[in-house]
């Protein structure tokens, strides 16, 4: 309870103006559609902002990704991390008026997955062996193996509580098309890939956001989003090109922020093939001038990183660095008998348009590598193809990739990146597995974090991956509204005030 109150306070900027500053309608220019309205179905980050308006998460996050109470007023993980006792608020109702109870909690995090529905939620909660209901507000989650970061998962993508009764009424297909949640907004109008209109529930259990009505315009094209903002058809636009942001910042008609988020851009490495040779792996890392990339493509706003996590997050080593040093890179290659004149050649996969600047970055890297003697031939693939290739072990030795971790927890960084059982792992060695497995089931949080610090260090020194930049979210919005950016890249109605 206390926690909740605190968070409430944190959220509520200038309480005395709260009602004076109500906003009747806020139009947001957004990049992509939710694709599906079944909140448990997709882990992909983009839809989360929208889903989060309609559904509630058991555990919430503060703007700097600290856990805070959501539907769960309290939670306690067992020593062995094999179970967790949760307490639900008793005042949470779905928009159809029915109460949200542990039944729904169990249905979401156990029964749905148990039924074998195709849900990304399974990635995290596949290990839930049962949820034991003690009372409408009390339940105990049981896990097949230790699940130390269940709390983080409960605050992460796709972890939204759905109504059991409703779900069973409409069935899986219905869930995809017509959402019904306990969130602060209900879906009023929906035109696929075009517009989403949400209206505020005034019977919402929690703190009421100031925006009565939210219109989300799906505009995939960044220039079009900018145009929409400048023409005043929307109040807020995300993912504008960095150059446009700079322009907006110079002019005084709009606010524009670049918000470093819990998303990292890195190059995946495969432990086999050309990269079986540690020298080459490290050379590839040394050869890349990250700050130049940041300057060229993010106006220098993107923080360069040398480890698979971001500053301020658990597991981050403030004084561990890996330098750009092409001389060193050349040495290493020479040691393995390569050089600019007889380069080692490899395939390098990248997406094009998956995230801002990806294709440019990839091509820049190719040239940087070329200088030291790594001949990379660039292959453009799509995200889905990436999984496809990786699953069938056909992924090129290196690939430019982006990693989203709404929780900031190291397990959802290095942990999942290198867990050989997950489809994300590209660098698979017994050594890595040996280090990671215990961490995944380490109940003691401090030991866990320490472990990850060591692991991160090891990964970089081994050249198991090449971290590049912490991604930045760009937001432009009209004067007259205030916005508090969230480190997980979500746009939160609560965070927008007039």
């Amino acid at each position, binding site marked *: 309870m206390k926690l909740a109150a605190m968070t409430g306070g944190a959220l509520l900027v200038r309480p005395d103006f709260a009602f004076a500053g109500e906003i009747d309608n806020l*139009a947001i*220019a957004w990049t992509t559609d939710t*694709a*599906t309205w079944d909140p448990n*179905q*997709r*882990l992909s980050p983009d839809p989360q902002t929208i889903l989060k308006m309609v559904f509630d998460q058991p555990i919430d996050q503060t703007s700097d990704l600290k856990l805070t109470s959501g539907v769960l007023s309290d939670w306690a993980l067992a020593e062995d991390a094999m179970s967790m006792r949760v307490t639900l608020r008793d005042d949470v109702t779905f928009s159809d008026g029915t109460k949200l109870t542990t039944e729904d909690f169990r249905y979401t995090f156990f029964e749905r997955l148990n039924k074998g529905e*195709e*849900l*990304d939620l*399974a*990635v995290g909660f*596949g290990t839930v062996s049962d949820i034991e209901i003690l009372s409408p507000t009390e339940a105990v989650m049981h896990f097949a193996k230790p699940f130390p970061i269940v709390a983080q998962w409960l605050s992460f993508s796709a972890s939204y509580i759905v109504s059991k009764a409703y779900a069973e009424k409409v069935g899986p*297909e219905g869930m*995809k*098309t017509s959402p019904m949640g306990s969130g602060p907004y209900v879906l009023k*109008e929906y*035109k*696929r*890939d*075009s*517009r989403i209109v949400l209206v505020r529930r005034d019977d919402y259990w929690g703190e009421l956001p100031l925006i009565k009505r939210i*219109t989300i*315009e799906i*505009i*995939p*094209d960044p*220039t*079009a989003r900018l*145009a*929409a903002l400048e023409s005043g*058809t*929307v109040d807020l636009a995300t993912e504008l090109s960095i150059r446009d942001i700079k322009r907006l910042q110079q002019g005084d008609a709009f606010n524009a922020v670049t918000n470093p988020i819990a998303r990292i851009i890195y190059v995946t490495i495969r432990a086999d093939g050309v990269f079986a040779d540690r020298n080459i792996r490290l050379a590839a890392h040394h050869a890349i001038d990250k700050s130049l990339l940041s300057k060229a493509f993010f106006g220098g706003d993107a923080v360069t990183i040398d480890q698979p996590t971001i500053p301020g997050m658990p597991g981050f080593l403030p004084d561990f660095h890996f330098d750009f040093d092409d001389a060193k890179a050349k040495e290493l290659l020479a040691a393995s008998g390569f050089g600019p004149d007889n380069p080692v050649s490899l395939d390098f996969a990248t997406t094009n348009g998956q995230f801002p600047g990806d294709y440019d970055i990839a091509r820049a890297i190719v040239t940087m590598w070329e200088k030291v003697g790594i001949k990379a031939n660039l292959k453009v693939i*799509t*995200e*889905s*193809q990436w*999984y*496809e290739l990786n*699953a*069938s072990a056909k992924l090129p030795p290196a690939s430019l990739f982006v990693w989203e971790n709404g929780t900031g927890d190291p397990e959802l960084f290095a942990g999942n990146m290198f867990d050989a059982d*997950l*489809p*994300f792992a590209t660098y698979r060695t017994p050594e890595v597995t040996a280090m990671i497995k215990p961490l995944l089931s380490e109940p003691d949080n401090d030991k866990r974090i320490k472990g990850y610090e060591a692991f991160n260090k090891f990964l970089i020194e081994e050249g198991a991956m090449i971290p590049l930049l912490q991604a930045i979210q760009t937001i432009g919005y009209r004067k007259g509204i205030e916005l508090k950016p969230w480190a997980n890249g979500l746009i939160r109605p609560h965070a927008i005030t007039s």
Partner: protein
Amino acid sequence: MIIAILRILARRLLAIIPVFVVVTILVFGALRILPVDPAQMSLPPSATIEQVEAKREAMGLNRPIWEQYTIWAKGAVAGDLGESSQYRMSTAAVVLDRLPATIELVICALVFAVGVGVGGGLLVFSARDTVLETVGLVVISAVMALPDFLLALLFILVLGVLMPIFPVNGRLEPGMQVPTQTGFLLIDALLTGDFRAFFSALHYIALPVMALGLAFSPTIMRVLHASLVNTYQQSYILQARLRGLSGREILFGQALKNAMLPVVILVGTQFGGLFGGTLLVEMIFSFPGLGNLMVKAMQTSDLSVIMAISLIYCATTLLFNSLADALAYLLNPRLRNG
């Protein structure tokens, strides 16, 4: 006569069916060769090997290809085109949702193209044997060197960026909404009597239509001009002149109907090009139609959607060809009772 036309049409449509079946087989085969695994695609990335196997079994991917085809065909006939792996929902729904936009676009473009084409053709022809004709023909061949996708980009650059007169993205001004009835925005807007929306829709569709239409019209101009030149060498034109008919009486009363025949046939055969053009133009103007969906589907290798859309493209093309044929019969009595 009407009966005759209908007979032709019916006949041509029947003739289409086998062609179309062959097309479906080809596309199906082609897509199966692609290096993507539909089963894998239709599952969340977290799916384990077993799950994928199971899915593959369920989708009948382990059966021989012709069995797979028959499975698909059966479904297709029943209106089930499989499930889109990017939307995780019925392909038919996804595609049909987008179809009207494209149809609207292509129809407008066709009208525009024919209008400009015929008008221009007549203009150039009526200036025959003057320097203007030469100028006209030069201009025509210049425009012919601008395929639709270049025109689209050019329009964006000139009318969207340098002097922003037209919007270059989407179908309707953000913030505006029109209740969907037919799915054809312009029609819906009129039906609801919302003229602001109607004009906004026009405003938004203008550039794509112009890009598509203008790319097609010079060909029409040329053919019309050429066929007029030929027609005017026919002796019945001279005869009409000898009967004392005036210039415009001859042009519109005698020549045009005959001269239009090649144009009709051209439009019929070239329609495919125009329709295919929508794919790029939609992509460039991020116009929410089939083309965009197709590109997206190709990027995410969403096979069932690719299949469905390419079939729609083919079907429409074939349909228009036979429509053109029918029209040709209508215009040319010699064919009609041959």
